[in-house]
């Protein structure tokens, strides 16, 4: 089945300058092993993993170095073979401290024997998924959990949790999210262009595991090569599978907005995609699932777009998890000019960094270095009620009103006006002529609501 006509989203959002041309035509480059990998135990949403190695241990690639701390958590594996130099707290991209395992690679990059065992054990899993899906499903979910896979689009939700919907929430549709609506980022775009067949195989594995009838690959129509590659991969599949072209508009990659655009279904407030019979997985996640099931390999690397006007040679880099940002930047030729802001992720929702001593995680889709003229200091003014934020908000909120309530610390009023439904997409602040820190206000409001809900 081929790509269908572009579908409109809920038609709410913004059209930021995309700047993807710096890296969209550049093939993924494999980064050589750096001298040190700092592997964080907190690379996903949920509880950080518990380290199971100590200083002085030697590890092999794919060996578990952090065990999942409960169901909503994810295991962490050694990204290469080498010696554990330290287990200590280190900063994460989110600005908090978390335990991390420092590994000095030995250069052999030898896989742990468990990987080969898993591969052999799962050799007939694909066939069994076809013939007796009900029995094989559990095995897929276990393989995904073993591999420590977490949503690679940026949110980092543990994938095995998404693949285990409760029995009363049947999944009808699987959406493979290749929208990549954040400006600058091209990691998913390149993955689709270069590894479409493998992504699609991963998608079919997830589909079988969920028992979903329908698969949609969502691509924004500014990525024609990716759409064509995915279309070719999808073409041979039987069943209700298709690539859908989404109108290029931010935030088309946001789960709930994407489900509305493709299926016309609206996830209820506070709910999850599974409430409307949908699971959304990022293309990188699909690839990781395939690697786990077919090759027995846990998640030890990912593609990160290192870009922005300050980077000398912007690239799509396939780097081991735990690669220090400073090594990533050095691999891309260093800085051509001094950056004023370094963002982990995309510029709309990414996290500003205070330095380059943070290392890549399962969620690190990009590293964007921006110059002063794009992010220079500005003063925030009183709201002039222009209404642009209201028009841009994909959640249907009135950011101007909420921000005034939150500035006045009237949290009850903000909660009553559904501040909890904000997805922190940043559209409001992007369009605000008064440069109000709207998202910052929303976060405060959401934190208050979350705290209220935790209270007995």
């Amino acid at each position, binding site marked *: 089945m081929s790509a269908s006509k572009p579908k409109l989203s*809920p038609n709410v959002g*913004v059209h*930021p300058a995309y700047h993807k041309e710096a890296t969209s035509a550049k093939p993924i480059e494999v980064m050589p092993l750096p001298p040190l990998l700092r592997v964080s135990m907190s690379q996903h949403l949920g509880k950080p993993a518990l380290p199971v190695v100590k200083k002085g241990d030697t590890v092999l690639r794919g060996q578990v170095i952090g065990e999942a701390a409960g169901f909503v958590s994810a295991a962490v594996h050694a990204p290469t073979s080498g010696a554990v130099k330290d287990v200590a707290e280190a900063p994460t991209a989110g*600005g908090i401290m978390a335990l991390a395992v420092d590994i000095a690679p030995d250069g052999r990059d030898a896989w742990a024997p468990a990987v080969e065992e898993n591969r052999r054990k799962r050799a007939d899993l694909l066939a069994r998924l076809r013939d007796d899906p009900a029995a094989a499903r559990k095995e897929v979910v276990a393989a995904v959990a073993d591999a420590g896979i977490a949503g690679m689009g940026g949110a980092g939700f543990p994938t095995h949790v998404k693949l285990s919907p409760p029995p009363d929430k049947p999944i009808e549709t699987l959406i493979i999210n290749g929208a990549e609506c954040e400006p600058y980022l091209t990691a998913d775009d390149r993955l689709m262009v270069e590894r479409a067949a493998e992504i699609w195989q991963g998608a079919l594995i997830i589909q079988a595991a969920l028992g979903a009838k329908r698969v949609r690959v969502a691509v924004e129509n500014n990525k024609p090569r990716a759409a064509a590659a995915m279309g070719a991969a999808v073409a041979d599949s039987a069943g209700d599978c298709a690539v859908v072209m989404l109108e290029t508009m931010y935030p088309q990659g946001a789960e*709930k907005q994407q489900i509305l655009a493709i299926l*016309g279904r609206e*996830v*209820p*407030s*506070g709910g999850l995609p599974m409430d409307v019979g949908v699971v959304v997985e990022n293309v990188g996640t699909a690839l990781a699932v395939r690697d786990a099931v077919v090759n027995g390999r846990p998640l030890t690397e990912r593609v990160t777009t290192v870009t922005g006007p300050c980077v000398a040679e912007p690239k799509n880099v396939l780097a081991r998890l735990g690669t220090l940002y*400073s090594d990533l*930047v*050095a691999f891309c030729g*260093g*800085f051509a000019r*001094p*950056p*004023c*802001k*370094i963002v982990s992720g995309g*510029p*709309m*929702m990414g996290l*500003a960094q*205070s*330095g*380059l001593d943070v290392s890549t995680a399962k969620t690190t889709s990009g590293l964007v*270095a*921006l110059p002063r003229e*794009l992010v220079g*200091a*500005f003063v925030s*003014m*009183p*709201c*002039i*009620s*222009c*209404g642009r934020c*209201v*028009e841009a*908000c*994909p*959640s249907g*909120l*009135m950011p*101007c*009103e909420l921000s005034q309530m939150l500035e006045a610390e009237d949290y009850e009023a903000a909660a009553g006006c559904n501040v909890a*439904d904000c997805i*922190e997409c*940043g559209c409001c*602040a*992007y*369009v*605000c*002529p008064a*440069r109000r*820190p709207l*998202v910052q206000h929303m*976060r405060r409001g959401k934190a208050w609501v979350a705290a209220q809900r935790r209270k007995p």
Partner: protein
Amino acid sequence: MSAEPAAVSLIVSSSPHAHSGASVRRIMLDVIIALVPALAVGLYLFGWNALRLVVVCVSACVLIEALCRKAMGRDPGVGDLSAVVTGVLLAFNLPPALPGWMAVIGCVFAIAVAKQIFGGLGYNPFNPALVGRAMLLVSFPVHMTTWAVPARLASVLEPARTAVDAVTMATPLGWAKTSLSAGNALPLALDSVATAWEFFAGFKPGCIGETSGLALLIGAAYLLYRRCIGWQTPVFFVGAVAVFAAILWRVDPARNLHPVFHVLTGGVMIGAFFMATDMVTSPVTRAGMAVFGAGCGVITMLIRAWGGYPEGVSFAILLMNAVTPLINKATRPRVFGHGRRK
């Protein structure tokens, strides 16, 4: 090459890290640009008098804004150009012959009372230029309703001019209202298509900036293109005036002006496109803008038909400004995931 950033200089702030580049200053500049065609017509029709009032109002507004902000210990804050916009709009709503010192009093009310006392741009509930104009209308009713005859007035109004007063005359609205309340029939000249076009182009007595619907529309088109105003406000405003006037006219064509003239005379065009669309004092939602516009139109016609003044645009907008917060609350959009989708 070094991968070491000058770590100290990195900005760490909340997302988003991209911005559209929109600014308050740019929006105000766009409004000023959009007012240029109407200004040109005003200068052409009223000459030096118009220029004098625009210069007086703009300089007075900027100066008063700077003084107020200084007195309140804030930065001068005139860089956002909003005081310039207020100055031009106030001048546009004044009769060309008004003495300069009166205009300055209007500016004081507009900037000091209507805007800065409330906290400055963004906090003012009422359109500052309209507050200035309303205060002048109440304080100097004679001056505010005496109209110098434009140097290049169209021939249609010649008979009326000679019949009424050789030097000054009422606006067509005032003239019609006086005529009607005196029990006379409406001047027939007002019903011709040619007159309608002349009115539309701006050849009629009136305030400096309000006479030419054509020039105002050109400016408004620019504002729509720049997304500085929503179409709902002016369309519902003008639409409500037209519908209301059409009903009156159908009921009694002899005692009511043709709807086209209601739309083209007085302040409807400038009010609908430039005063009611003032961001700060009008609703933020599209539905709210429609309600706001319609409300302005209806109140304008109520005043014109039954009120004491021949013109009602300013008061209509000020009244609607007062209910803007209510309209905002009543027209909040449906939040994603709440309620049912069809």
